[in-house]
């Protein structure tokens, strides 16, 4: 009697294990199949998004070329001439890291930037992505990238209620411009 009960338990344990194993196996197979199909598309999409972002920053460029030895640095080419560099910029904002893509001219002036990810306050800090604030950077050299709270033509006017964010963005772009200046100097030598 006890023996029978034991046997029955064994077989039901086996059944349960089989049930789970089959489920996991089928699930894994389905996911793996879909992954092999969607992953190339996702990679293409990521490249396309990146190219679109760069195209948006440097509208005149006809092509972008990765720079050897610098990860995620690109030069924007027009008729074979370098008209801008597109480089990643990062800074600590109010709510966390702000990741940006900055476009810089070869003579070390900012052109524009695009915010890739951030954790700033919605409605205040996230206005950093708006053209009104962004356009202040166009054509500025690092010396003029100073955040002030009053209307200005020479410097950067802070966003209302988001001074920390404004300073963080300015710092990130300034560092990117400096890095490009350093790089162009080293290439010329």
């Amino acid at each position, binding site marked *: 009697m006890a023996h029978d009960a034991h046997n029955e338990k064994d077989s039901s344990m086996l059944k349960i294990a089989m049930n789970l194993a089959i489920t996991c196996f089928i*699930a*894994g197979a389905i996911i*793996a199949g879909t992954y092999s199909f969607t992953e190339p598309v996702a990679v293409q999409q990521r490249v396309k998004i990146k190219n679109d972002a760069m195209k948006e920053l440097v509208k005149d460029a006809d092509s972008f070329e990765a720079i050897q030895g610098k990860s995620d640095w690109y030069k924007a080419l027009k008729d074979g001439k370098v008209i801008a560099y597109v480089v990643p910029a990062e800074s600590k904002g*109010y*709510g966390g890291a702000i990741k940006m893509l900055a476009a810089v001219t070869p003579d070390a002036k900012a052109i524009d930037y695009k915010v890739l990810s951030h*954790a700033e306050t919605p409605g205040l800090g996230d206005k950093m992505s708006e053209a009104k604030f962004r356009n202040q950077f166009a054509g500025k050299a690092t010396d003029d990238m100073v955040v002030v709270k009053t209307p200005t033509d020479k410097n950067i006017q802070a966003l209302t209620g988001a001074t920390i964010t404004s300073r963080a963005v300015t710092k990130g772009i300034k560092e990117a411009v400096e890095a490009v200046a350093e790089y162009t100097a080293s290439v010329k030598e």
Partner: protein
Amino acid sequence: MEYFTLFMGAVIVNNFVLTRFLGLCIFFGVSKSLDASIGMGMAVASILTASSALAWAAYNFVLVPLELKFLTLPVFVILIAGFVQFLEIVIKRFAPALYNMWGIYLVLIATNCVVLGVPLINVESNFTFIKSVVNALGSGVGFALAIILMASLREKLQYADVPKSLQGLGIAFVIAGMLALSFLGFSGMIPM
């Protein structure tokens, strides 16, 4: 110091319940009584820490080397649910007194979004093992803090004259909103 800021950030600034909205089912379900909330808070904090450590190991020692990153989600879900189930059996067997106190919460925790969400965030942020554990512990303590505060508020609320349609869950949400408002004051204090 780095770990301390990470910990405090997870407890207060990025409190999972009040700023990232994870674990709300338990948060609203259990916060009716203060005693239950204390037990639940402690249970979540300890399970969260343990399961984050486990998930980190599974991710970095199995999924990454085998290039099976796309299976992260199902593996984490099954791993954590299995771990909690296992814990339930062990505690029932060896510490019945503890089981009587905590047992009912364990079932609720097995498929809870905090317990799954924090390990996922850890691997997404490429945290080291220690950072993952610190972040998980901080998130767990933050959850406990939020649910205990909420329970004390709701216990007081029993004597208040709440409009009939808002009684129960409705007013609980409005109160949670006010709690979240006060936690908003911490934002920006510790940049991650």
